[in-house]
């Protein structure tokens, strides 16, 4: 009896592991573009609602069908939690969300459609134009089929208003080496030549596993050299003579101005930025704790705010004393970014106008910074004492 039980348990465990191996790998996903919700008509007798999809522009194709056996997904808000607070059925705009996955030995594009009415007509999903192109190799992975079958046809769908249906497009499997694909031929999801980066696929095969937190970086802290440049007065942004003077920055090997590196820890995110010292004294200003502070923004719209820049005065302009020819780095500390965030946008807001040599308070926005690449840059920021030969 004991042996039978033990063998049964082992068999269940093996089956469980096999099932896990066939699990879905998410290669890319997006909440999608928000598009106008079509006008909804209500049948007075049946109270059923219907809508005609507005963005399909293939009227020269006359084939029509009704999509049968459509999959309705229940966990849409779990897949896209960023819209969880949105009253999606009252919105005049609706997100055209999608996920690209690897499952069952194929690449599958899941196009999600939230039913604005009980019946929607004049929809369009794919045609022979639909394909994925490996951005590095140029290899085209053409469409194999769709589920339900709507290939090269206008179609109507019946489901309950508010249901999210999953329209699947099947492609050949992508090699694990593929980093970026360009998606063509899904016009109602605005995917007509859009380049997307695929999530890192490591050797273990499970996206997200393999990255761990970094150790907090230790940077050399600058020290205060003078409380004021030349006038012993309270700090005045418009009078540089009242600004502090710092020295002994964190020296690094020569790097291109603006090179960055990132360290992720559970407590904070550290972002180092390389700067070239072109003059004996250069002025700087870092602002945080208010709306002028830098923000990192992930693709779901979550913000990670600047907490401090190590060793420099907060919300004050200051001078850094050094040698022309020094390469230095500042270390910015942000709210912690979760390990599953792969890219982010760096937002540097516009600053306040001020009077100084060639003052520039224009901010900047840097899109799509790869955390993986920035982590690889960490070694560029090792402290290297200044070496001078006369």
């Amino acid at each position, binding site marked *: 009896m004991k042996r039978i039980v033990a063998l049964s348990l082992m068999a269940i465990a093996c089956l469980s592991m096999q099932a896990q191996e066939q699990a879905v790998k998410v290669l890319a996903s997006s909440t999608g573009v928000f598009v106008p919700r079509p006008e909804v008509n209500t049948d007075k007798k049946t109270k059923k609602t219907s809508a005609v999809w507005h963005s399909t522009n293939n*009227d020269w194709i006359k084939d029509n069908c009704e999509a049968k056996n459509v999959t309705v997904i229940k966990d849409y808000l779990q897949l896209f939690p960023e819209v969880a607070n949105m009253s999606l059925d009252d919105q005049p705009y609706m997100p055209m969300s999608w996920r690209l996955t690897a499952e069952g030995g194929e690449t599958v594009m899941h196009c999600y459609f939230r039913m604005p009415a009980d019946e929607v007509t004049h929809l369009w999903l794919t045609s022979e134009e639909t394909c994925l192109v490996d951005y590095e190799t140029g290899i085209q992975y053409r469409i194999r089929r769709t589920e339900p079958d709507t290939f090269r046809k206008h179609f109507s769908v019946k489901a309950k208003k508010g249901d999210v249906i999953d329209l699947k497009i099947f492609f050949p499997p992508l090699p694990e080496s593929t980093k970026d694909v360009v998606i063509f031929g899904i016009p109602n999801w605005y995917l007509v030549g859009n380049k997307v980066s695929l999530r890192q696929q490591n050797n273990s095969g499970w996206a997200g596993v393999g990255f761990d937190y970094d150790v907090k970086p230790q940077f050399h802290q600058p020290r205060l050299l003078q409380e004021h440049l030349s006038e012993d007065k309270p700090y005045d942004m418009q009078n540089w003579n009242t600004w502090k003077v710092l020295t002994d920055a964190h020296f690094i090997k020569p790097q291109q101005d603006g090179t960055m590196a990132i360290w992720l820890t559970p407590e904070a995110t550290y972002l180092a930025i390389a700067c070239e010292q072109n003059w004996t004294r250069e002025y700087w200003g870092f602002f945080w704790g208010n709306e002028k502070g830098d923000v990192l923004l992930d693709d779901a719209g979550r913000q990670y705010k600047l907490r401090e820049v190590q060793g420099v005065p907060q919300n004050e*302009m200051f001078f850094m004393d050094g040698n022309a020819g020094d390469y230095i780095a500042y270390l910015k500390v942000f709210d912690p970014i979760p390990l599953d965030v792969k890219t982010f946008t760096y937002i540097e807001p516009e*600053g306040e106008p001020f009077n100084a040599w060639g003052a520039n308070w224009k901010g900047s926005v840097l899109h799509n910074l790869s955390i993986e690449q920035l982590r690889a840059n960490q070694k560029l920021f090792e402290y290297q004492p200044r070496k001078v030969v006369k």
Partner: protein
Amino acid sequence: MKNERYKDTDLREALRRKYADTPQLPAGFMNNMERKTNPPMTRPVRRWWWVAAAASVLLIIGIGVTMMPIEERMPTAPKVVAKMEPQQTSVVTTQEEPREEKIVISQKNHQNKLHDSKQNQKTVPVIPTVEPEDDHHLHYASAELTKDTLPYQNPARVDEFIAKMAAYNHVKQGELECTQPAGSNVVSSVYVFPDNKEIDVFGRLLQVACCYSDETPGYLLSFSHQQFFFELKDMRQQLQYRWIAERVNGKILLYGTHAPLGTKESSACYQDYRDELMHTKSINKTPREI
């Protein structure tokens, strides 16, 4: 040795006498204690079987959870992968322009170089910033009691910024020919900006959006290379704001709207304007001049 045993006996006797008057343990006390510490082993085989089965089930669940993909384990994790073009170099840098073209003094957050040269230096054109209010709280404190947990930020400042950005770039507000439902109090505005790096409409809008905490009521920010979509609620004025910027046919259509909370809004205006820019009306529907 003998001596020690004698002393020991003596000590025991002394103790017995000393504690002779202490209360006696109740009858059966030791037996009860023994029963509690060593319960009788009834049906030992069945008990073992259930423990083994439970342990096995826990083992299977443990294996399952361990092997489960991380996306399934963390449903709230962001699912979106970058939609903008990634940088091609292995070394990531903030440098947006080729080094040769870099203006001498324009690097970073108000960074500049102080030196005694008198050469003319170009400054980067700057759009007038939205004038900060001296004190956001004072403005309202006199009239209203607030239950805000965050410092109040007026969403209308986004509209002010857009108007200034348009004026600076000589972009006029477009005319909306469509009509919202009568009496709906929906206020809309539309601009068509050139899509170029100098103006960088998406970047500027992201800068403004990030002035608002992501805990602001109604905060929803969705952006990609194709579209910027931003919503906020003004709980003091009871208004709902929305801004959509979209790359359409080599231009950027920027549409802003606000209405009292709960107003039934339509996307028809936006759709009409977009269709005009896309020339889809002229292809499929009634030809109209833009």
